[in-house]
């Protein structure tokens, strides 16, 4: 479909959101509680906090939950009965107020989950999710979306992208059929869009390194992987707040006669990542796992999946308990300008 622009006046925003909630879909939006900014299930517009730079966790869990039941089983000595998950029970969902970095992350996840087979859990969740993005008014020192070919007003991944323009009204760019379906539900709230230079209303974030330079300089041997990662504590925080990290582990919960198989998030930072049954681990030392993290995102994924595994949201750096700042490291590797 051809994208179309509309104007949503600020006084119409609460009705817009609440109409969507009443429409029966689950609506997740950023909230602020005890200084913690997180996406939560919303019932009223007043719960929403839009004036944020970044949430701690990403919107990844909506399409790739931290725990996903794959099937249930019942077994006796002779038979095993497998009960599949009914994918129809996955709810229709709207993510409201996600920044462009988060919206763009679904493309990266999609590349992984459709690579060698189509992951029906991810795809069903993604198909049932509508993203209403929000351009960024502000950024902080951790943000670097412009260095990974995105920008604070990117429409990539948003079904509708809202940008706050004059008088706190919103320019609504309706990008996809899912976006149009939402628009049609609340058409009366929209007005024709004014001629407006969107870029004047989004934050100006300078590009801090060049992706091609970075990719050219990445090498398995010869970089200071150890020096960059010595302070790493080997926890999974960076991967679990990351919108694009997609590694998972499979676990059985239950016993020999009854239970379920689930997949849960996994991360290359943990020492038992890729630990073989034999006891050998090809990535025994943290510097080898840190190299895996960077090479995966900036070399292997672009090579194999034609996407970079990073949207520049900066969450990993903000959440790291020992201030491993990925931007600092990427600039260092690429020989960037800072």
């Amino acid at each position, binding site marked *: 479909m051809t994208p179309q622009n509309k104007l949503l006046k600020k006084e119409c925003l609460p009705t817009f959101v609440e109409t969507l909630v009443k429409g029966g879909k689950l609506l997740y939006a950023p909230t602020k509680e*005890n200084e*913690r900014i997180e996406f939560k299930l919303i019932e009223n517009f007043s719960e929403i906090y839009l004036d944020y730079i970044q949430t*701690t*966790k990403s919107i990844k869990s909506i399409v790739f939950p*931290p*725990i996903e039941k794959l099937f249930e089983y019942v077994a006796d000595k002779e038979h095993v009965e497998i009960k599949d998950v009914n994918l129809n029970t996955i709810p229709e969902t709207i993510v409201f107020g996600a920044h462009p970095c988060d919206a763009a992350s679904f493309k990266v996840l999609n590349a992984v989950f459709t690579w060698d087979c189509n992951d029906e859990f991810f795809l069903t969740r993604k198909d049932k999710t509508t993203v209403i993005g929000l351009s960024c008014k502000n950024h902080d*020192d*951790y943000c670097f979306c412009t260095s990974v070919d995105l920008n604070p007003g990117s429409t990539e991944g948003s079904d509708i992208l809202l940008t706050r323009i004059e008088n706190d009204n919103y320019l609504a760019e309706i990008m996809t059929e899912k976006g149009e379906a939402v628009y049609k539900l609340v058409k009366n709230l929209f007005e024709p869009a004014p001629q407006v230079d969107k870029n004047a209303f989004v934050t100006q974030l300078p590009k801090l390194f060049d992706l091609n330079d970075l990719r050219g300089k990445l090498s398995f041997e010869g970089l200071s992987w*150890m*020096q960059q*990662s*010595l*302070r790493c*504590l*080997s*926890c*999974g*925080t960076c*991967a*679990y*707040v990351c919108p694009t990290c997609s590694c998972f*582990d499979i*676990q059985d*919960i239950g016993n020999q006669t009854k239970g379920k198989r*689930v997949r*849960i*998030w996994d*991360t290359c930072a*943990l*020492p*038992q990542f890729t630990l073989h049954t034999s006891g050998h681990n090809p990535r*025994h*030392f*943290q*510097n080898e796992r840190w190299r895996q993290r960077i090479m995966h995102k900036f070399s292997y994924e672009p090579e194999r999946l034609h996407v970079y595994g990073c949207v520049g949201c900066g969450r990993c*750096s903000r*959440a790291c*308990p*020992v*201030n491993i*700042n990925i931007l*600092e490291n990427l600039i260092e590797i690429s020989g960037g300008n800072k």
Partner: protein
Amino acid sequence: MDRVKQKARDLLDSNKVQVVIGYEEGTDGTARPVFIMDSKNIDKLIFNDRCYHNLAVYLTKVEVEKIGRVAVEASLNTLKGIVKLASEGQFVFEDIDILGVNRNGELYEFASLDEVIDYIDQHPVEYSPEEISLLRKIESMTREERWEYWQEEFSRCIRCYACRAACPNCYCDACIVDINQPQWISPTPDALGNLEWHIIRAMHLAGRCVNCGACAKACPVDIPLNILNLKLAEEISKNFGISEEFLLTNYPLAIYDPNDKENFIK
């Protein structure tokens, strides 16, 4: 600080140690751990109130062990971590060098583990008023309220294990939560799994925790894990009637004493 830097420089230049672990300025106004292997970088070292990480955590890491002998810039909490780890046989005290200054501004000169223990004993911990008030608030709750409080807190847990990774005393090669044959506790980030994890983490540290608060500070979703440990430390002290000095070098839950006041053990 100049004397600390000079000592660190001397240790590296004379090749008595191969790495100095200390603090440097982070990228966001915080202090962060730094590993210095070349004395020309020694001016990066800082030490101030922002240096909260318990650097003892690095002393048992395989990545650090392979570099060689270590000198560590030690806060009081790091000293406690060192004593605990040495007491539990994780390394020999004489195999590390300790950098820092005491409250009189003199360079640390510890000839033995006992001298470190004496020093720690002269500087009793002062828990922050925030920690104490939160602990008392939770204690004053009914059992049901307390259950709800922790359920709510644990519900945010994403099982990143930053609490475990930041703790000097969580040094097991194979943590109980990572063992799946048999699976002792659930690794899943749901209500039961999270409850099991946080109970087992706290219980494994009961009587061993040095109350540095590194777990809570590392938590990306602000679960006040240090309060669980603080409460357990109080319970251990109360029930075993022992001092912090004793706790540092002993593990009361693993000691047999014929004079134990409990009858079941006799």
